């Protein structure tokens, strides 16, 4: 386990990270003896009906922590548990949203917490097999999960009769191979099926026709890792944290120009001032925060003047942004917004799967236009192109969210920092140093 930078159970609201930092927590024996591990699974299998489990999750109001924020219990309810034939749980561990490292934090610290959540979900939706799709670069977390699965099998928690209940359960791992698009659920399924990871048209939704054309529940690592707490303590206890519409806590990985970058478990509804300035210590001495991405690079930026925005999804939607992946990137006043946006557009253009035209072509247009602007060859024309490209990428014109995300980067940086764009494009100057030099 690497050094812990973030939450490890110091505060009452540290529900997921409660026992992080406990020595050898990754080992099943320690997870059980010190952290009360697998009590939720035992309770779910021995004392609860599958429908009760789903209802408990519905009561908790838990919303997906991958990016879209869909109601988890509702999603579980979409799977027809009694349909004949195999059903699957597929876990999205393809964490690759820029600025996001919370799923890695969970898998490295407490792999059994994730496994327990997966097993409960599988039982609730009537699946006997789960697949964890983990990004290929995560060698460490992959190894942790392999060892945890071996331990869980040896103990019988995975196998024909977990906790003595005749409900066979197994978990398999599948490694990604470096493609951001696999974080999109239908692209992930394509990849799991051994194809190029290009998103599918919906419907049919994965709950009806998912992995290998079977009903499939897709959840993020953090979402499932929150489930054991909810089963142990009840959904009603969970809603005591957070806000009415965004209950509970979430892990926010705070990175960039802050003194204490880390993965912090935050009660939803806290402000970004609390997250960035208090938990993460704010910008380095002598610097001021200029802008932050509140939920991964795809979440529209907010200027420092909006630090008092709350972290719940409704508050973020009200300022035309989103909670996204929980990755908070802070940038101080020594950095240029146009260069940062150019760097991100290069990312989205590179990661476009090429299936739909607006994203494939729009990304390249944006990159070339940013290149001209940053080479001091810009004019009003380039600014106009960027605005048109941003529009062309958004509002459902693309098959999946990748195009929208690229458009939001342009759109939101334009909205809040038009002066910096005009400095570059019209006056051929930059008011700040040359950072993000790779743009």
């Amino acid at each position, binding site marked *: 386990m690497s050094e812990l930078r973030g939450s490890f159970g110091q505060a*009452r609201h540290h529900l997921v990270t409660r026992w992080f930092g406990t020595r050898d927590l990754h080992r099943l024996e320690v997870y059980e003896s010190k952290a009360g591990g697998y009590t939720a699974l035992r309770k779910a299998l021995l004392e609860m009906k599958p429908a009760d489990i789903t209802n408990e999750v519905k009561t908790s109001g838990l919303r997906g922590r991958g990016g879209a924020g869909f109601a988890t219990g509702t999603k579980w309810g979409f799977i027809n548990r009694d349909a004949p034939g195999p059903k699957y749980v597929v876990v999205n561990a393809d964490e690759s949203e*820029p600025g996001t490292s919370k799923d890695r934090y969970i898998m490295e610290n407490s792999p059994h917490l994730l496994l327990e959540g997966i097993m409960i979900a599988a039982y609730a939706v009537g699946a006997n097999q789960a697949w964890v799709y983990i990004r290929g670069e995560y*060698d460490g977390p992959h190894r942790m999960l392999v060892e945890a699965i071996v331990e869980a099998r040896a103990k019988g928690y995975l196998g024909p009769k977990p906790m003595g209940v005749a409900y066979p359960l197994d978990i398999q791992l599948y490694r990604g191979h470096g493609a951001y698009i696999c974080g999109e659920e239908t692209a992930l399924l394509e990849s799991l099926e*051994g194809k190029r990871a290009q998103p599918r048209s919906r419907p049919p939704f994965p709950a009806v026709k998912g992995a290998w054309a079977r009903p499939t529940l897709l959840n993020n690592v953090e979402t499932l890792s929150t489930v054991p707490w909810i089963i142990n303590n009840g959904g009603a206890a969970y809603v005591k944290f957070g806000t009415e519409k965004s209950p509970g806590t979430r892990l926010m990985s705070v990175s960039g120009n802050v003194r204490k970058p880390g993965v912090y478990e935050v009660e939803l509804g806290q402000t970004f001032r609390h997250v960035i300035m208090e938990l993460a210590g704010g910008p380095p001495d002598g610097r001021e925060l200029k802008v932050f991405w509140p939920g991964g690079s795809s979440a529209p930026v907010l200027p420092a003047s909006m630090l008092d925005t709350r972290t719940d999804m409704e508050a973020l939607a009200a300022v035309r942004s989103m909670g996204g992946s929980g990755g908070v990137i802070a940038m101080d006043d020594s950095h240029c917004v146009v260069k940062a946006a150019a760097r991100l557009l290069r990312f989205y253009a590179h990661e476009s799967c090429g299936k739909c035209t607006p994203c494939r072509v729009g990304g390249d247009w944006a990159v070339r236009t940013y290149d001209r602007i940053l080479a001091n060859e810009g004019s009003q024309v380039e600014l106009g192109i960027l605005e048109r490209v941003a529009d062309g990428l958004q509002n459902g014109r693309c098959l999946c969210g990748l195009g929208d995300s690229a458009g939001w980067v342009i759109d939101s940086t334009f909205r809040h920092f038009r002066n910096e764009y005009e400095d570059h494009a019209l006056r051929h100057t930059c008011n700040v140093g040359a950072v993000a030099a790779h743009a």
Partner: protein
Amino acid sequence: MSTLSEQVLDEIRELPGKYPQHRSAVMPALDLAQEELGYLTPEAMSEVATALDLDPGYVEGVATFYTLFHLQPIGKHRFYICTNLTCSLRGSSEIVERVKGAIGVHEAGEVSKDGLFSYEEVECLGACEFAPMMRLDHEYHYDLTPDAITARVNERRAPLSRAAKASRSRTPSVSEGPPPLPSPRAGRAKASTSSPPPKKRAPRTKKVE
């Protein structure tokens, strides 16, 4: 005479049984091929296709989609340097420059003269609280400094015994850990050595009600 060894081809033929549909075996199979050869040649992809009863064009289509499959020769040791936003805000361009200088190449993908190294600039690797960071072969390295890069390169150039001796004689710091421990848990041990051990454990004084 095939490019891939019979042993690897046998392993590949076993793979489809692990999945609900045989096509899912294509990426694990390409992994095995790449592990043996270092990168994927057209012949190797064809052999994977034959072993899995798939069309060679299909297999190549999959291989070209994912960045972790290499279609050109690469160094024995690969630097995957994150240059996405967080890492670039914290100095990844310096890291890239030092890697290029230390291994003596001009651009990403170029293999050093001794065949030992190549580097790539990659997108976010999901360890942003440790930026700037990179993946070196199968291991994450955190809180990078240019000097740490030079040290990693020198360790891999020097004969192993010398590198081991050198690292024993100094205290491991945040950026300079001892060389990997040869144990079944090597990967994790390696990862942990690039950072100091957890400084403090959570005080267990209060319980969540």
